[in-house]
């Protein structure tokens, strides 16, 4: 395959970053914006061409006998630690990568376009586009990574672009602290990922150079994924605290994914990250970066399968997170926070789905890897409708100048486009056919029921909660009671300009039809096509639950009524706890500020200044003290000198004599 397009995919956004980052200050904002959007359009074309070529060309590089192949377009050495541990930078083309290329470039383009309207009056417009380009570059580099280390490199880069974009309004202390929090929490998770990579690569590099794991790179996905048993064998049965070393390595690597994908207990940064501009939330914190954890697990799926304990871990973490986030989302006021927790919940859904995709036949039916396909499908659909919801929220915030639903209400009359697109998004995420979310969620639930009925029931409840809280904010924003302030002239909210509405309409259209894509034909865990068919009872259950939840939301929130506040008063503790996100932030604040900063850091700094430095100063003081004492011998009194001299001479003489005797 020609490598021009893959190189362009990485080069265009990076070049944009440099051009807009260095030269942007001197550019008029219109120029900078149009350069950004045009370049992104070119990028979109490249990505679509590559993905299209991969899926439909039928080239034997990509598909052999109906089985999709993984293909390294290029893979060049970047840094060689040892003969075996070589870091390459490359471009791996396979189904999930091609799918991600489509998702990233689409959402990125939508966001670029949308920002043209949304960010029009913000200072630093050029900088904003530069950062978007940097993010796009890093995210594309992450998904095309040929090896875990390349992924780690771009993993860090998306972290920093996320930091820069969350802190875009850098004059606001809240934005600065949110960006710091996001970076440090994900960095903390990345530490575990790094240790995981260290462990994994250490054992792989220990294998014989001519074995199946030989060759230059112990990081390579293709090599590791095609020989998971050899990798397991390379650890020679080494165990640590009851688990095999490989299990630990894979769990540690997954912890990195937990950080990026905001799984419990590392989720605390994502709600705060909503301080960033809303289009950024749509791009990074809903559609692309936060699914990096899911992508990581999918990318390493054969390796996770070889150590099923790690998949169980993923499932448990995902299930707890999904439920937790769904409950919290029911009690948030800030609409972006609701969407953030909804994102956490949905990503956790994908995680559970991946965790349940373990290749295991049940009752004779081979559901191998259904969860994998379903998780990826949901990743795809979720990216579309969640970006839609965020961009819709952005349009609302743009109109109302507030993030809280208490300042909204009854907006459907004023903002019809936003209303309808938002409704489509809500229906999609609630899992109502024929919108896209229904199909992907149904497949996921099927996979979970197949794995274990507990996961199925648990996640069905989460799905019900999802439908409830989404329609809760939908009603509170668009129905409920009209905010009296709208009556005043000049405050009348209205639909956003076309740059913002167009992406909403496109994404809404995609959300309507994406469910009919035969996704199983394109992405499965082993490349063989899988024909999606609806499991009747699963679909029935989930639709019933969703409809019931929507009905409950309608009863409670469609019109202004005292029911919600009654419920709130009925369970004040629960509501407060959920509203405060079960006090996770407070716990973290306590641990970081009181224990780490106040305890460890201050203690060490004190120790350094007083004990270590004090010792040095004390040495100097002792020397000084002694010299002051000795100084008085040098009195300038010659007679005293003679006396001392004589005494010394006498002593020496006496000693000599005694020795001679």
């Amino acid at each position: 395959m020609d490598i021009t397009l893959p190189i362009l995919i990485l080069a265009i956004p990076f070049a944009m970053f440099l051009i807009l980052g260095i030269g942007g200050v001197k550019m008029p904002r219109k120029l900078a914006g149009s350069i950004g959007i045009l370049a992104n359009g070119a990028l979109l074309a490249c990505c679509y061409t590559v993905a299209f070529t991969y899926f439909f060309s039928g080239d034997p590089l990509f598909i052999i006998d109906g089985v999709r192949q993984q293909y390294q377009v290029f893979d060049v050495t970047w840094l060689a630690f040892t003969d075996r541990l070589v870091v390459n930078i490359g471009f791996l083309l396979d189904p999930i990568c091609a799918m991600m290329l489509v998702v990233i470039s689409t959402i990125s383009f939508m966001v670029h376009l949308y920002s043209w309207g949304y960010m029009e009056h913000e200072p630093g417009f050029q900088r904003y586009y530069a950062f978007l380009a940097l993010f796009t570059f890093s995210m594309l580099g992450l998904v095309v990574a040929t090896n875990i280390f390349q992924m780690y490199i771009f993993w860090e880069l998306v972290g920093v672009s996320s930091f820069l974009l969350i802190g875009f309004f850098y004059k606001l202390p809240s934005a600065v602290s949110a960006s710091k929090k996001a970076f440090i929490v994900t960095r903390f998770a990345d530490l575990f990922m790094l240790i995981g990579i260290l462990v994994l690569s250490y054992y792989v590099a220990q294998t014989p150079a001519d074995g199946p794991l030989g060759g230059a790179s112990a990081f390579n996905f293709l090599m590791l994924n095609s020989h998971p048993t050899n990798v397991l064998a390379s650890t020679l049965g080494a165990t640590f605290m009851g688990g095999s070393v490989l299990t630990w390595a894979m769990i540690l690597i997954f912890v990195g994914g937990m950080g990026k994908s905001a799984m419990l207990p590392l989720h605390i940064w994502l709600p705060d990250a909503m301080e960033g501009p809303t289009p950024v939330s749509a791009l990074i914190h809903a559609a692309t970066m936060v699914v990096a954890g899911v992508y990581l697990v999918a990318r390493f799926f054969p390796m996770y399968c070889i150590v099923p304990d790690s998949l169980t871990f993923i499932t448990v973490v995902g299930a707890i997170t999904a439920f937790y986030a769904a409950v919290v989302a029911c009690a948030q006021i800030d609409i972006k926070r609701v969407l953030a927790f909804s994102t956490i919940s949905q990503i956790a859904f994908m995680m559970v789905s991946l965790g349940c995709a373990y290749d295991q036949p049940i009752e004779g039916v081979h559901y191998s890897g259904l969860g994998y396909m379903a998780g990826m499908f949901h990743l795809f659909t979720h990216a579309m409708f969640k970006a839609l919801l965020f961009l819709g929220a952005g349009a609302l915030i743009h109109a109302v100048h507030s993030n809280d639903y208490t300042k909204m209400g009854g907006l459907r009359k004023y903002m019809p486009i936003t209303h309808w697109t938002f409704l489509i998004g809500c229906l999609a995420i609630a899992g109502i056919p024929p919108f896209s979310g229904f199909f992907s969620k149904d497949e996921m639930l099927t996979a979970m029921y197949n794995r274990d009925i507990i996961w199925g029931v648990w996640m069905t409840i989460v799905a019900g909660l999802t439908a409830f809280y989404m329609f809760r904010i939908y009603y509170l924003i668009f129905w409920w009671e009209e905010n009296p302030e709208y009556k005043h002239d000049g405050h009348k909210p209205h639909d956003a300009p076309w740059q913002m509405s167009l992406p909403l309409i496109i994404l809404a259209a995609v959300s309507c039809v994406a469910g009919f894509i035969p996704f199983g034909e394109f992405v499965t865990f082993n490349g063989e096509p899988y024909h999606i068919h609806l499991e009747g009872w699963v679909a029935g259950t989930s639709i019933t639950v969703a409809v019931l939840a929507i009905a409950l939301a309608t009863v409670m929130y469609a019109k202004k009524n005292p029911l919600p506040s009654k419920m709130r008063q009925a369970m004040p503790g629960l509501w407060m706890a959920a509203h405060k996100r079960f006090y996770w932030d407070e716990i973290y604040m306590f641990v970081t500020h009181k224990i780490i900063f106040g305890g460890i850091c201050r203690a060490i700094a004190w120790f350094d200044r007083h004990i270590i430095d004090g010792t040095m100063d004390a040495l100097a003081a002792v020397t000084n003290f002694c010299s002051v004492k000795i100084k008085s011998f040098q009195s300038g009194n010659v007679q005293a000198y003679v006396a001392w001299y004589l005494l010394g001479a006498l002593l020496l003489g006496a000693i000599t004599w005694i020795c001679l005797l």
Partner: protein
Amino acid sequence: MDLEMLWYLVPSVIMFCAGVFGFITRKNTIALLLSLELMLNAADLNFVVFNRYLFPGSMEGMVFTLFAIAIAAAETAIAIAIIINIYRAVGNSDITSAQKMKF
């Protein structure tokens, strides 16, 4: 009865110790110088005596004494010049009054 080397060394020792005593206890700078001359002479005498008894064939001890005498003369001259200066400055020649240049 022979005049042995020891015989000459004993007065020399007493001279030296008298000089030491004088140097430590006297207050007057000229007295200090006198004590110094005593000690120097004791040392000179020793040089000569050792030269005579131990190395009668050579004359290094004597030559050394000659130099010592010359240098003692120079030293005394300068010292007395300084003492007179001190006297001019403070009105007496006590060593306790010449402490301004200490440190």
